[in-house]
């Protein structure tokens, strides 16, 4: 694979990552913030795959597989938390979740 192609893919990955960060920072809704996290994970996966291809080595692909599995676990735990929070607060805003304050 030509390096130029690698950089194109990396730029795509960076764009997705930034979109994810933007969503994470700007969303007021816990659930939608989780969507943004999925985007972040995918950007990382894309990076893995790009380098895997670049070096013609399956390790990166294996890690993408691991990443997808971990994303599944993360999503299921996170969604469980979302459900719990919603049951307790009847609201999914971050603003309500300020118990971390001193």
């Amino acid at each position, binding site marked *: *694979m*030509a*390096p*130029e*192609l690698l*950089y194109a893919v*990396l730029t*795509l990955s*960076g764009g*997705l990552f*930034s*979109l*994810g*960060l*933007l*969503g994470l*920072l*700007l*969303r*007021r*809704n816990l*659930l*939608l913030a989780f*969507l*943004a996290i*999925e*985007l972040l994970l995918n950007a990382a996966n*894309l990076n893995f*795959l*790009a380098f895997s*291809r670049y*070096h*013609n080595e*399956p*390790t990166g*692909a*294996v890690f*993408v*597989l*691991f990443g*997808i*599995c*971990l*994303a*599944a*676990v*993360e999503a*299921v*735990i996170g*969604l*469980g938390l*979302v*459900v*719990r929070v*919603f049951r*307790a607060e009847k*609201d*999914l*805003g971050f*603003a309500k979740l300020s118990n971390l304050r001193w």
Partner: protein
Amino acid sequence: MGTGKDMAFLGYVCGVLTLLGLAVGGLLALVGGALAVTLRDPIYALLGLIQAMIGLAAVYFTLGAEYIGAVQIIVYAGAILVTFLFVVMLINLTAAEVSPLPRGLPLLGALLLSGGWMLTLSLLLQSILDLPSSHQVVEPEAGEVPYLYGTLPPVGKALFTAYAFPFELLSVTLLVGLVGAALLAKKPSSYGA
């Protein structure tokens, strides 16, 4: 087998197709991601994300990782996001029910992000300019079967040889996640306090 001229032409076509696949898939993914982080209605945002996942899968296919692309569609677009969809429907949330964030925070976040973006872009640009001297490109030797890294046999082989132990640990992690999710989703009253 054709002549050398035929091979060159074939390579050119392949290159164009790759670029095309990358462009289409990447565009799909970026637009989908943008929709996912901007749309107010959770259902639409989720659909945007699904579009992004499919776009990414297309990129994976273009890069030659057919197996990973398939997994991406089945597990991500199919399973994970559908779980999200279930939850969205379960708690029946509309945008109005969310209390606002403190003022100034979005601005700060946007500033940081744009700064970060510019930094990253400058780094990428610099790297591209530095290319010939700094990178040794690994191309497959003539006669070898090219680009098999992302298909099922090499991934499966790596998974069950070099990464057998992490793979098993992953199954434990999945189990823990399963139990944890079940515990979290139970009615609070059912375990005291």
